[in-house]
């Protein structure tokens, strides 16, 4: 026989003023299964908890119901109290007779009646509660960072500094990411490379960090604490362990017409190359689509000249498998293609460029060695027009519906830099709104307008066209309410940014969810912004949403903190309120796995006895309790009812329904 104890809280007068608590306790006493019912001023107080503990021991209670405030408030309190008295903490139910009863009703009789029903409902539930035990799973003390941009670098450094092994998987030949391409950073205008490259070097030199450049994540299995990741190491045709980065191969390579991706294709590079001077690892890579030896079998010059014999044309992709406890996704972004925006004439005019291209044109290590020359004729542009929100906040379908967040600031930065370096240059900026939230951001923008005299025009650009070698920018000035046309030498498009496309595959591998714009979804928009819904997977940088460098770095460090918090544990306690399949009823139809947001459900073949000495092998669902978060989506999808949720079982909920309806 179940022995239920019921405790009704007065909550001072919060409950007792509207609910006749003594009457509730009295009525409840005669409920089947209830062996003890009491009421007390403050159940959550030390004395109140003591009362609970004592009653559990004295009356040998098998379950307790607390009629008090919301379980969101004190469920944990009473569970602890129960546990201290030797009762399984999950044999506790809370009837919410404050927020859902005494505080919303005025009539004492009505509120008392309702309180009785709510307590009865909790009793009906607790009678079907089962003792639950939190499970445990071990933690592999190594983290994986996917993406070697500033987000990945920062996260890796922080984790490694805490003493944990970290692998960075970077799909390009060097780490550094987008930040390496940027010339100066706002709002301080300090040199991007100067602050980034030391961190890259730190990574390379850190004994806990292993950089797997020119590599991609191929497959992910397992779950929080125990991911098993297969990584493809792409063939770079250069032995990483031998190459010294002397660059002689680059000099000697006869095939020099490859587009230089690092410089936004604004100049060329040889078939064997190191992306940029400070690349980490400082190791060459051969572009097999460009290499003469690899295309025709004739050449082999680099191999001849390589002093250490690092060149290997026969190299193949290799795979490694490693275990990780946590994964940080920091796959970053790319500017969107502006090909769709015919009105800006990007494809038709060499002097219509994107902002990232401008970065390279202004960078000392860029194609023009830092001198601003326009691409068409190498002349200094005298009139430069910036167009903001190209593809951002665009609901037409051509662009992205969201704000890319960084464009206002970098455009102000570009305008300011140009005006400073080339004061004779006229700079116009077409904008819809200027958004400058952030420390020193608005001041920065105002300096551009006030100190540097940049001409900000509120309005949209309708068309950019070439007229006699001049770029005519036709737009509206909304403030003066007039149509204007600006004759320009260079037009810079502040293109929207979007998540690096490879994130889709990674999201699938990690069962991490992704939104319609391909940004990874965080576990909670406000309270768990760096965690993916998939336990053990964390998000840093633009893969989660548009952000600038300081925000990216903050998020990366936050990720690191989360990862460290996870990796310091030897074992993980798992939430016991998880889904469990009754294998004897499971059809193995996979419907549950289809709705599981966490990828917690897998399938195994099991043998079942049929009676009469016969057996059959069936495919049945298996839930990984370390991964399941207990939402219950699977339980409703399961037609046979084989899947149930501990702590919120179908039987429990139905008995609550019955108790409530019995008025």
């Amino acid at each position, binding site marked *: 026989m179940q022995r239920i104890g019921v405790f009704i809280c007065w909550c001072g007068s919060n409950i007792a003023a509207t609910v006749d608590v003594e009457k509730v306790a009295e009525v409840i006493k005669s409920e089947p299964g209830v062996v003890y019912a009491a009421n007390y001023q403050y159940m959550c107080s030390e004395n109140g908890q003591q009362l609970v503990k004592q009653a559990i021991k004295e009356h040998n209670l098998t379950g307790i119901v607390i009629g008090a405030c919301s379980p969101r408030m004190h469920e944990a309190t009473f569970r602890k109290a129960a546990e201290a008295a030797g009762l399984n903490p999950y044999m506790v139910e809370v009837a*919410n007779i404050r*927020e*859902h009863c005494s505080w*919303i009703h005025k009539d004492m009789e*009505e509120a008392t009646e*309702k309180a009785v029903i709510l307590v009865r409902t909790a009793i009906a539930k607790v009678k079907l509660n089962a003792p639950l035990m939190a499970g445990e799973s071990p933690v592999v003390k190594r983290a994986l960072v996917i993406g070697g941009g500033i987000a990945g670098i920062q996260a890796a450094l922080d984790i490694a500094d805490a003493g944990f092994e970290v692998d960075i998987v970077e799909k390009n030949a060097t780490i550094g990411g987008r930040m390496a391409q940027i010339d100066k950073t706002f709002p301080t205008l300090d040199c991007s490379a100067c602050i980034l490259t030391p961190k890259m070097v730190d990574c390379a030199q850190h004994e806990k960090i292993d950089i797997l450049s020119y590599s991609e994540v191929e497959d992910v299995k397992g779950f929080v604490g125990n991911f098993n990741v297969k990584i493809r190491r792409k063939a770079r045709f250069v032995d990483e362990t031998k190459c010294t980065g002397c660059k002689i191969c680059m000099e000697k390579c006869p095939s020099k017409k490859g587009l230089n991706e690092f410089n936004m294709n604004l100049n060329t590079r040889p078939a064997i190359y190191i992306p940029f001077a400070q690349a980490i690892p400082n190791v060459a890579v051969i572009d097999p689509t460009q290499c003469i030896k690899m295309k025709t079998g004739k050449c082999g010059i680099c191999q001849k000249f390589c002093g250490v014999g690092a060149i290997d044309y026969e190299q193949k992709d290799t795979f490694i498998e490693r275990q990780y406890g946590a994964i940080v996704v920091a796959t970053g972004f790319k500017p969107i293609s502006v090909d769709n925006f015919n009105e800006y004439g990007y494809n038709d005019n060499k002097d219509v460029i994107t902002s990232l291209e401008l970065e390279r044109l202004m960078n000392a290590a860029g194609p023009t060695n830092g001198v601003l020359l326009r691409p068409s004729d190498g002349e200094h542009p005298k009139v430069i027009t910036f167009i903001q929100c190209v593809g951002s906040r665009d609901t037409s379908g051509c662009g992205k519906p969201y704000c890319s967040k960084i464009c206002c600031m970098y455009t102000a930065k570009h305008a300011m830099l140009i005006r400073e370096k080339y004061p004779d240059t006229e700079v116009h900026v077409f904008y819809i709104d200027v958004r400058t939230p952030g420390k020193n951001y608005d001041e920065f923008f105002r300096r551009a307008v006030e100190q540097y005299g940049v001409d900000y025009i509120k309005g949209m650009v309708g068309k950019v066209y070439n007229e006699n070698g001049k770029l005519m920018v036709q737009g509206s000035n909304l403030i003066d309410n007039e149509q204007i046309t600006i004759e320009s030498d260079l037009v810079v498009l502040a293109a929207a940014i979007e998540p690096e496309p490879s994130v889709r595959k990674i999201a699938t591998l990690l069962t991490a969810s992704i939104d319609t714009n391909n940004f990874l*979804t965080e576990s909670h928009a406000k309270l768990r912004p760096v965690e993916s819904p998939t336990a053990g997977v964390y998000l840093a940088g633009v893969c989660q949403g548009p952000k600038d460098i300081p925000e990216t770095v903050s998020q990366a460090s936050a990720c690191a903190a989360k990862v460290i918090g996870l990796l310091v544990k030897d074992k993980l306690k798992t939430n016991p309120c998880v889904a469990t399949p009754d294998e004897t009823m499971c059809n193995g139809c996979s419907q549950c796995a289809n709705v599981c947001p966490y990828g917690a459900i897998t399938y195994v073949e099991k043998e079942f006895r049929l009676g009469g000495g016969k057996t059959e092998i069936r495919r049945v669902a298996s839930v990984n309790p370390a991964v399941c978060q*207990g939402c219950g*989506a699977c339980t409703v999808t399961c037609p046979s009812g084989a899947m149930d949720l501990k702590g919120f079982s179908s039987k429990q909920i139905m008995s609550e329904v019955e108790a409530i309806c019995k*008025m």
Partner: protein
Amino acid sequence: MQDVSTEKKEFTPNIVAFCCNWCSYAGADLAGSSRLTYPANVKIIRVPCSCRVNPMFVLKAFQRGADGVILCGCHPGDCHYVTGNYYTRRRMALLYSFLNYMGIEKERTRVEWVSAAEGARFASVMNDFVKQVTELGENKRLTDLRVKEGE
């Protein structure tokens, strides 16, 4: 906001509200702590997520004599479990449409998204739903007469 509980009416409907733990239940808590009122015949069952609510529970409620069933969850996109309420939305849209196809009054069923911050909305939704079901009268089409036998 009209508070129907103060009007003395012959028929007071029995309403079962399923609320997800993270948004709507918290919203109901906020309604309480803001001392907003709604009728006492609304009784809430806490579920982890609206996607835990099986159509069987809804039908069970009607069987046992509920006159209206309302299901509350986080706003789409805000689900604590990321996607749970998206499934709820499809399931319940189809279920409720189907019940109506069978001739069950569609005013007896409802899905509402109520966030943890929307205490006032929770109360007004409940007041509105109670009013709607009260106007509709007793559930006779989807109830099990045996349940009330002997009363």
